[in-house]
């Protein structure tokens, strides 16, 4: 389906591409609010751990996973081995496999040319925004929405890391601490409208919160608990989600 729209109506395609690039960049703004202060904090911590400015920035460019980068830097500080750090990163980012599976299922009619870069840019935040804008995936040129949303978030993350490594704590401590709520507020803002439309979605989310809390108490590992809660609570959707919600 995606291929046909690429070959026909090329002028139309360009105008709608610009439209979706704008919309995507706008949808990324809440992520930018969250990524800048967290990126700065990461940059500062990484510098304290002895990473050079190049290494700080390269890690953000190639890994693009906030939580894992924080864990890696604190493990380096504690003198952890290569294998330990890579393994911890793997476990912590395994949740992106589940998230990518969900979003790729939604975008399955798109070509791999789009799907691969979008999948590589998936973080908790870009995944959440992308999932809550499922309609774009069906629209002509809608892939530009995801691409632009991810790229803006990506640059905010890299820029924040660079600023943290270069300038240190540029945001006052009290403000930077308060900005820690930004991404949670965005997750909530993404979730609530769906709950308003379908209360069962709220049930799935609350179930996941409880499972996550329990799993974290048992495993003591953030990566595993998020993966377990997401898969198990997601399974409740097999019975809870109405069919028409699925078909779009």
């Amino acid at each position, binding site marked *: 389906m995606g291929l046909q729209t690429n070959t026909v109506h090329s002028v139309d395609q360009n105008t709608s591409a610009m439209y979706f690039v704008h919309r995507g960049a706008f949808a990324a703004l809440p992520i930018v609010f969250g990524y800048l202060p967290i990126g700065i904090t990461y940059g500062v911590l990484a510098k304290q751990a002895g990473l050079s400015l190049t*290494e700080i920035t390269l890690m953000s460019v190639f890994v693009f996973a906030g939580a894992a980068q924080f864990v890696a830097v604190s493990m380096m500080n504690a003198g952890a081995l290569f294998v330990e750090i890579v393994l911890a990163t793997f476990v912590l980012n395994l949740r992106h496999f589940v998230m990518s599976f*969900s979003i790729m299922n939604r975008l399955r009619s798109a070509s791999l040319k789009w799907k691969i870069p979008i999948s590589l840019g998936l973080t908790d935040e870009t995944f959440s925004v992308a999932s809550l804008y499922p309609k774009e995936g069906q629209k002509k040129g809608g892939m530009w929405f995801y691409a632009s949303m991810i790229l803006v978030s990506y640059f905010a993350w890299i820029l924040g890391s660079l600023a943290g490594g270069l300038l240190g704590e540029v945001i006052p401590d009290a403000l930077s601490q308060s900005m820690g709520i930004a991404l949670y507020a965005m997750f909530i803002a993404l979730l609530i409208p769906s709950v308003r439309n379908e209360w069962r979605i709220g049930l799935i989310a609350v179930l996941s919160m409880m499972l996550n809390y329990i799993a974290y108490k048992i495993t003591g590992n953030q990566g595993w608990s998020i993966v377990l809660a997401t898969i198990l609570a997601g399974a409740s959707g*097999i019975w809870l989600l109405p069919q028409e919600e699925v078909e779009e």
Partner: protein
Amino acid sequence: MIAIIIGMAVVTMIPRFLPAFVVDKWVYPKWVSRWLNAIPYAALGALIFPWITGVIEGKPYIGVIGGLVAAVLAFFKINTIIVVLGAIITVFIFNTVL
């Protein structure tokens, strides 16, 4: 150091892009699709709680209050950016006062 960064990048990228190929190759039943469509809501739940209680160290209730303010604003269909700013201001005020 570079080796660690490359190692981290590889183990992060593989789980991210693998599903792009899997959905192309594997035809799965309707209920799997329904499961996958519930994943975003489950993931959002697991990304919010209990971590939101750790926004201000030692004061778990401040994160919760910020989250509740965000939920109320979002319920009244306020723009996401205002929701985020509202939560930041709430946490800032409570953290300075309490």
